[in-house]
């Protein structure tokens, strides 16, 4: 199983509130292959962001383990780039400075750094805005910077936590298109958390549907659609309704 980039084994995580341990994730087993795009889909509060934070190394498991390329995750690292819902750009750095942040840390010489930054700014269409500061950008542009920042660091894995959740519907679809295009160039292993079914069907090779809290894996749906997807194709709609049915069962449980 050497092609398994991310291996999640019997993973559980509980949070302590008011002196009581409440399980957020229960007994998760998941393998993500190299260059695979996996979406984690589930109702809010199902622990899907917790799962991502565990893989990123921001949280420690209560039980079980996560292996990345065979090695146990003990903390955050440059091998796993993260894109956050709230962008989290460094406000004191320009767009170019943000994209160069990881390259600076790893001591990439200035010349190579400039070339890499230029390449990724071009990839996300922000070349004209290189000298601007984050406060000057719209939400969509900020998220493009965050994606360029993660990619420029050349991690094998990109973890995305509802990256388009704070954007308006139009910007959201534009960025989904761009992410699809970027993925066809960059071929990263991607773990992508979302609560949007359309987004999951549009982007994923496989969709992991979570149960409501405590989060377990309810079902994994493989999306057999071409790389470039048509949101109005009959097949697309078919996956959409199948996933909608699965998620609705979980949402209904919360309201019971």
């Amino acid at each position, binding site marked *: 199983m050497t092609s398994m980039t991310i291996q999640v084994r019997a993973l559980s995580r509980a949070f302590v509130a008011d002196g009581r341990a409440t399980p957020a994730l229960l007994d998760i087993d998941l393998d993500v292959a190299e260059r695979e795009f996996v979406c984690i889909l589930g109702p809010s509060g199902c622990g899907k962001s917790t799962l991502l934070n565990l893989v990123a190394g921001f949280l420690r498991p209560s039980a079980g383990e996560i292996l990345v390329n065979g090695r146990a995750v003990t903390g955050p690292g*440059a091998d796993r780039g993260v894109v956050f819902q709230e962008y989290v750009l460094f406000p004191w750095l320009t767009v170019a400075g943000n994209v160069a942040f990881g390259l600076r840390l790893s001591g990439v010489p200035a010349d190579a750094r400039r070339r890499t930054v230029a390449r990724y700014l071009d990839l996300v269409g922000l070349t004209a805005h290189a000298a601007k500061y984050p406060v000057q950008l719209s939400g969509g542009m900020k998220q493009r910077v965050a994606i360029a920042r993660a990619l420029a660091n050349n991690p094998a894995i990109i973890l995305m936590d509802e990256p388009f959740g704070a954007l308006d519907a139009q910007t959201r679809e534009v960025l989904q298109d761009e992410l699809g295009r970027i993925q066809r160039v960059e071929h990263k292993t991607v773990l992508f958390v979302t609560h949007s079914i359309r987004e999951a069907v549009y982007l994923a090779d496989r969709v992991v549907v979570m149960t409501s809290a405590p989060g377990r894996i309810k079902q994994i749906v493989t999306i057999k659609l071409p790389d470039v997807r048509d949101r109005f194709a009959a097949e697309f709609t078919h996956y959409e309704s199948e996933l909608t049915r699965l998620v609705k069962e979980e949402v209904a449980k919360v309201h019971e």
Partner: protein
Amino acid sequence: MSRTRLLALAGVLAAWAAVAYGNAALQLMNPVLLPTPGQVAAVLAETLRDGSLPRHVATSLGRVVVGFGIAAVAAVALGLLAAMCVPIRLLLEPVIEFVRPIPPLAFLPMFLVWFGLGEASKVAFIGYTTFFPMFVAIAAAVLRVDVALLRAAASLGASRLDLVRGVIVPAALPGIIVALRLGFALALFVIVGAEFMGADAGLGHLIMEGRTFFVPAQIVMGALVLGLLGSLVNALLLGIERRLFRWREAAAAS
């Protein structure tokens, strides 16, 4: 300076002149007790000519700069440390919460006992006074740094040292600069008190001399010079702050 500000200052000056010169003409109270703008200007010219005013200003500023400088370095270092290291914070917090409400002037005689009447007691007193508020404000600024920024940097490969240098310091810098600006203003505030007791130079001494030799115009002049110094320094630091943090103003400019 804007037109309205100039107008407001001119208004205050006019009101003072009206009251002081009116009193001089009508003799409602002893005119010596209520110096006129002209008398104050005369003392100003006199002390400028004999070089005593520049000397007093330089002495006071020198004490402020050294005392504040030592306190600033300590407050930045300990503030960062306390914010990032929980055991140190737990240790320092109760001590500082106890010492902070004591009016610094209450300890001034203690500084004279320990450090004598020379420079050391003034510098130490300024350092003591300005350290606590700066330390508390700097630690608070560091604690306010968004955890998400640290996570973002860590997943780009930042080490612990990188996090301090590359994220915590730049993210907390606006708060740190505000703390330093307030600390400097406070230093100018308390240097006068320190110089009232056992000093042979400095603006506080100049003012006290005005009392001893009964020259109220000299007292008023000393106070006005202090006010002017304070606003000059504040304007200077605000200017530096604006230059340093263009990224916060970029939105307004674009």
